[in-house]
């Protein structure tokens, strides 16, 4: 990848405001995402992380401001064209269906389907096959969705989104309810996609240490606004975290990756240590 390609801005959000319900809204959000960059969105529950992802895809319409994808407003894209470019893995998707894994992943090819096309093309099948191979879920292909474990379901969701062959990949808490080995598997996979396919990734994470470890940039949100944006070292400071999360933490460093690491401190333990 040469320098110009690296600096190319894939997504540019300018002063975006939007409203999901009467109580909640996003206000004045601005940021850019360069090609091949992984941006982590962190923040407390209800700070607007999911709303932001849905606003980028146009699912929640913007009230004011602009969302530019490759320098064109997303409103100018037709739905099918946009879903070839941006894929999203939502947190709330229920997969309690009798559909087979392979059929589910093939639905990711829907943006490429011609209007009255009834069966998938050979190319669609090939691409779904590759998506299954990359996510290592080939043995699950004939299983029903409702027979999968939480981790397998998450991998299947990611494979479906990959079948869309997007350039921008949005993920809403993909590591939720997963054990550490599955968390690591999913984030390593995303890291590989970023490097191999130069995919840009926006990922909502609750685990600050995972965010620090895997993301190039972080956006810390509070009450529908961006509180702080930048590299993990700038964002994950104890002052920022205390202000946004109202929680005490101690900053540290991952000895292997040299990335910032935060330790949670409960107030009880703090009192005990002070007494001693």
């Amino acid at each position: 990848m040469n320098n110009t390609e690296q600096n190319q801005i894939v997504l540019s959000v300018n002063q975006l405001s939007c409203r999901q319900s009467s109580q909640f809204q996003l206000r004045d959000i601005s940021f850019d995402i360069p090609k091949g960059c992984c941006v982590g969105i962190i923040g407390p529950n209800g700070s607007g992380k999911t709303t932001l992802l849905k606003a980028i895809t146009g699912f929640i319409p913007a009230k004011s401001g602009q969302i530019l994808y490759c320098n064109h407003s997303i409103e100018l894209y037709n739905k099918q064209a946009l879903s070839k470019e941006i894929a999203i893995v939502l947190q709330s998707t229920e997969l309690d269906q009798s559909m087979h894994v392979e059929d589910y992943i093939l639905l990711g090819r829907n943006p490429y389907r011609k209007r009255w096309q009834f069966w998938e093309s050979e190319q669609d099948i090939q691409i779904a096959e590759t998506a299954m191979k990359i996510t290592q879920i080939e043995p699950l292909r004939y299983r029903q969705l409702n027979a999968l474990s939480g981790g397998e379901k998450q991998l299947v969701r990611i494979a479906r989104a990959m079948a869309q062959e997007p350039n921008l990949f949005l993920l809403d808490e993909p590591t939720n309810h997963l054990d550490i080995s599955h968390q690591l598997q999913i984030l390593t996979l995303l890291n590989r996609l970023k490097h191999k396919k130069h995919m840009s990734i926006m990922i909502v994470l609750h685990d600050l240490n995972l965010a620090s470890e895997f993301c190039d940039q972080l956006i810390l949100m509070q009450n529908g606004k961006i509180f702080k944006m930048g590299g993990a070292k700038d964002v994950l400071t104890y002052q920022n975290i205390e202000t946004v999360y109202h929680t005490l933490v101690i900053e540290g460093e991952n000895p292997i990756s040299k990335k910032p690491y935060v330790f949670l401190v409960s107030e009880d333990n703090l009192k005990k240590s002070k007494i001693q």
Partner: protein
Amino acid sequence: MNQKAVKWLITLSILLITLTGVCIIALTMGTMNISIDKLFWILLNQIDSTDYTILMQIRLPRILVGIAVGGALSLAGVILQAVFRNPLVEPYTLGISGGAALGVSISIVFSLNQSYALSLPFFGMIGAGCVILAIYSLNAFGVVQNVQRLLLIGVMISFISNSLFMLIISLSKSEQMHSIMFWTMGSLEEPNRILVYCLLIVSLLGCLITSMFSVDLNVLSLGEADAFHLGLHVERVRNLLLILASILTGFCVSISGIIGFVGLVVPHFVRLFFGSDHRTVVMASYITGAIFIILCDLLARTLISPLELPVGIVTGLVGGLIFIYALVKK
């Protein structure tokens, strides 16, 4: 050729052959039984005989209505289940059949059906459309939060339409009352040939259109947000399919009366045997629905022969029991 396409072709061929077999059996059985070898001989050589008249004037139109109604109600079930993402909804449980019945009874009481044969289905469709619109609006405003509430609302709408229906009956003249009551119980008998052919055409067209949208139905069954992100025009497709479901239900109810649970039982079992891909489910439900209704009608005609049971009672009994089974299993 795509492996799935081959499987699809084989499934539909088997179902079509079964449907043909069932149709032949339904032609031969009744108050007067005709053996199969005699059946073809009568159809080919004895055009002036009484048997020929029975076959062509009484049994064949009933079978055609059976195919159209069974297929259309199953299709309506498939559409509603995919749109509402709930395997327990169908025209009957959502009160759509009740709405259609109300529309039809209004047209009978005000004698609107005498001037123009198609006014009955027209009023049926308006009634069904009103109920779908009501449910859809409640859904859009967030009143329907879960499956249980949706079904409860359907039951309430059924109650309201039933009460209004009773009100109309109590205000009507005795001969009208008789014709409404008989029609309500459900029967595949329709003396008006134009209506039979219209119903068949609408039903087959419905099958064709729904098949064309079967991949969209697959996408839609993932939920509104996922469907949107896969490039589907959710609102447009959903509205079109809901209008189609109300046309199909309205037309069927206006001609054959209320035949319950077909739209629930048939798609449920089709999914059980052939999987949940709507490309297969749509067509297979149509054919299986036709087979189910023709068999139920055969039971209704032969169980206490020469007397005849309304087919709605048979489908209600069989379907109701299967519905309870499905609920318990869920």
